């Protein structure tokens, strides 16, 4: 059994979680409603209740590097059901924001944000799909950022203003992720 000295716990974690959107983290009284009906829970040992607990206790080394917080599908079932309105989904997102700033981000999430920065869309347009669009009588590309490059530049402005590139380690010159 793990033995943890609570004096070494990360006091700043609950505060950071609150700052990054998990404002009602401390409302949780560990009832188990969230963990019990979580769609991920039956397939993987992802337990929101324990994550809320560890966050409140400041057990950063257990929570931030782990893949757990990235397994949430943000289905909001726990959010709607929580009797104390602790807003667990918001806590998960807040933990992701904290973890990302410490360098813990799964590749796939970085990719998606990189795509949005490069293309204005979560996925790039593909030639085979463009052909199918034309076959139906639609323009090859939709009238979105896929057609209007200014839109992409506007997205990039937002990215720059909010420091997203630094968080996901996106290289502006190469317009690619670092690793």
């Amino acid at each position, binding site marked *: *059994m*793990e*033995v*943890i*000295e*609570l*004096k070494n716990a990360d*006091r700043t974690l*609950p505060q950071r979680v609150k700052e990054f959107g998990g404002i009602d983290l*401390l*409302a*949780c*009284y*560990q*009832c*188990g*409603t*969230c*963990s*019990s*009906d979580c769609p991920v*829970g*039956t397939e993987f*040992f992802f*337990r929101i*209740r*324990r994550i809320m*607990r*560890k966050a*409140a*206790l400041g057990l950063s080394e257990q929570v931030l590097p782990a893949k757990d917080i990235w397994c949430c599908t943000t289905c909001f*079932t726990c959010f709607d*059901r*929580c*009797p*104390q*309105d602790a807003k667990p989904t918001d806590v998960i997102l807040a933990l992701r924001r904290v973890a990302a700033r410490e360098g813990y981000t799964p590749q796939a999430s970085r990719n998606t944000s990189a795509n949005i920065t490069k293309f204005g869309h979560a996925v790039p347009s593909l030639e085979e799909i463009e052909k199918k669009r034309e076959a139906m009588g639609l323009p090859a590309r939709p009238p979105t950022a896929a057609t209007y490059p200014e839109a992409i530049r506007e997205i990039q402005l937002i990215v720059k203003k909010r420091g997203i590139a630094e968080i996901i380690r996106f290289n502006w010159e190469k317009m690619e992720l670092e690793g």
Partner: protein
Amino acid sequence: MSEDKIGAVLVVGAGIAGMQSALDLADSGFKVYLLTEYPSIGGYMAKLDKTFPTNDCAMCIISPKLVDVAGHPNIELLTNCDLLELSGEPGSFKARIRKRTRYVDEEKCTGCGSCISVCPVEILDGFNENLRGTKNIFIPFPQAVPLKATRRKETCMGCGLCKVVCESGAIDFNLTDSEITIDIGSVVLAPGYKTFDPELMKEYRYDHPDVLRSIEFERFLAPTGPTGGHVIKPSTGEEPKSIAWIQCVGSRNERLDRGYCSSVCCTYAIKEAVIAKEHVPDLSCTIFYMDMRTFGKGFEEYYNRAKDEYGIEFIRCRVPSVKVRTDGGLFIRYENEEGEIEEREFDVVVLSVGFQPPDGNRELARILGIDLNKFGFCETGEFTPLETGREGIYVCGAFVEPKDIPETVAQGSGASAKASALISTSRHTQVTEREFPPERDVSGELPRIGVFVCHCGINIASVVDVLAVVEYAKTLPGVVYAENDLYACSQDNQKHIQEVIKEYNLNRVIVASCSPRTHEPLFRNTCREAGLNPYLFEMANIRDQCSWVHMHEPEKATEKAKDLVRMAVAKANMLQPLKTIPIEMNHECMVIGGGIAGMTAASEMTRQGYRVYLIEKEAELGGNLRSIRYSLSGEDPQELLRRMIEEVETNPMIEVMKSTTIDSIEGYIGNFKVNLSRNGEKREIGCGVIIVATGAEEYKPKEYLYGEDERIVTQHEFEELMDEGKLDLSGKTVVMIQCVGSREEERTYCSRVCCATAIKNSIVIKENYPDADVYILYRDIRAYGFKEEYYRRARDLGVIFIRYEKDEKPEVTKDGDLLKVGVVDQLLKEKFIIEPDLLVLSAATIPAADNPRISELLKLPLTEHGFFLEAHAKLRPVDFATDGVFLCGLAHSPKLIGETVSQACAAVSRACTVLSRPFIESEGTIAKVNELICSGCGVCVAACPYEVPELVVNERGALVARINEAKCKGCGVCGCGCPSSAITMNHFMDMQIMAQIDAFGAT
């Protein structure tokens, strides 16, 4: 303010709170108008099957109260009525009331039920929680008071069949609503509650036939319910194999604006599971919970028995939803203690629904000009739970805060004390004396015995062949009449018995039914009202001692019932009428104990117009309250203390005696003699009633290194240190450990107050030192009622709660100068080490060291834990079995200040039902000494536990034992011990007992 206070009270609400309140007031010399919107009194308690923790049948313990209310000359029932307006001022109110018509003339209706059987229209039966239909003209339940039919106009077909069959001509469709105005001095509010509607939580699938609300399941268990007391799976009608209870449905839920705890659901779910298992022995019962809140007196032991003896399964996880398989079966998915997701199927799912404020609460608040709290319950103060904020209007029961029956009954009595204090100068001005017809002289008559054999619904009749017993009874010597009754105790049956007595000229009555402990007084009264001496009545217990214990052997049970009836008849043939005599009494009160309970009782007693002696063994008044410096609501306990001390010390009707101990207490109700010592000086005081308010103590822990380090303190010690500015906790770490000395092998009970205290003190720390780290190590957080909100507040402030298990307790060690607390977090299964700068132990509340001595002096029983044992756990929480002595405060069991105040007021109210009488009536069933035979040996003197017999020299110069009729309790010890057979026990004479034994032996 007018000088003339009106000696009458309006009680709004006729559940157990309203009834208790009404009975106390009516027994204390006040006229009571008992108003309810329903056609019958009884409230929710009438719907319950059994009550925790004693598993008493609810209807059995409440029916004597129903009949008492029905027959009380000082109570006027206003059923099917609404309060429209209250005007005037405290002491002199006018209440305008609408009487909604039943379309039945209450004077003429006999409650015979003929109209019900012919009515062709079915409506939903509200009493049975809409689980079945009832007729459009109905009586809510068999023991309803008043037992009158009520017709619902909106759904009536107008066929008039009911009118045709009504032999009394009571039904009249042209009757209309009417209005009356009554004059009263004060008002008691007891409107009760309603239960949460699971439609607001569709995830629990209340739409499925096998998902039930707890109150519906209660009706399934009850013998008067829609299944006749059989536990069924509704979709198939067959016995279920597994039932799950889901706790906290509509409680502890901030999201639904119901962030309070309904207090009783944990214990009621355990009760339902235990009773269900008694009905269906191989039933699997599972309770899904968050915290197990069995904090009341006897509840923790009930919980333990449920686990150990009944095999009820407890799973600590709040259920997120009830799922339905494609074949319609129910299952629940949950995270178990190891963190695995499990799925379990259940035949039936019971939702433990919480309490809501009653319908019409806002309207009631508007009419009365009182405030509601944010949940819609009545707004009261933490230390003044019976006060609405408006003088003259008092409140009690679930409308104040969700609570269980003993708390409700205590508050019902407490509110009476408050309501009557206002009008105490007008006592006896509006009442009618109970008049009995002259007693018929039966001496010289041959016995003419009437036997009434009760079905008790299915309680007796499902096992014992009642009709066979009736036929058998008719063959017994002396019996001239025998019949069977469905519910012998119902109000209409009392009238019926009286008619039979007259018609058949009976001079002895036997009821073969349940326990004399609950029902003997009721039937004796029935006899008395029919002109028969009440001691010409005998009971045969064919339920508790027969049908209930021989449930699976009906033939043998029927034979035993016949035996019991035969024995009762044999005795009845020998019964003699007995007289009681009026005894003069002292109208002063003595309160033992000068803590908040004693001071409150003393103060309230003077407002009733009676003088009080307040005895305190210490040099200072205040008891445990001296240590309480903070409160959850922010009110100042020390200000309360100062105010109460000043009140009792300056009140001319209270004589305060500090540093005073009791040497001996003699006497009996109305005439106690107490010998006191103070600093060597002796004094004797007489009083009519005694209130025991001796308090309790904080356990000094032996565990967790208490006493070995000044950084380890109890909660009381913490409050004193904090309040006196001796702690600087800035940036420090504080650990609190719950259940220290409670819920253990040696002390199994829950000390009830520690969770609220720890939460309170943790909030005090965080509010003063936001950067302090506070950890509370607990087993269950018992922040019941509205205290749940403070649990949330503590969490929001950053207090960390860590759950530990009983068999894996925290370890406290010293490592050099460091204190270390090691605790295994049961959720994460990780061990945490915390280094506290301060360790606060929530130590148990233990009985006062003095209790055994007081118990000896007053002959009062103690519980297995050493607190005082009340007369009845549910319905007589502040009474002792010994008449004239009452109980309140921590002497009863651990409780919070508000609860103590309620009980103190309750003890006063109960005591006033004695003090308000001009004299005391002695018991009839006492010992008598035949002085001609008595040899003066003194065995009876030595044997009597109440020190009643005295050896005196009589007029003939012989040394004989003399028994004071007023003091004798009729226990029989002297009668058994007397070697000369000089002592006869009235009503248990040798020849009567021998007749019973001979009858038993006969075939």
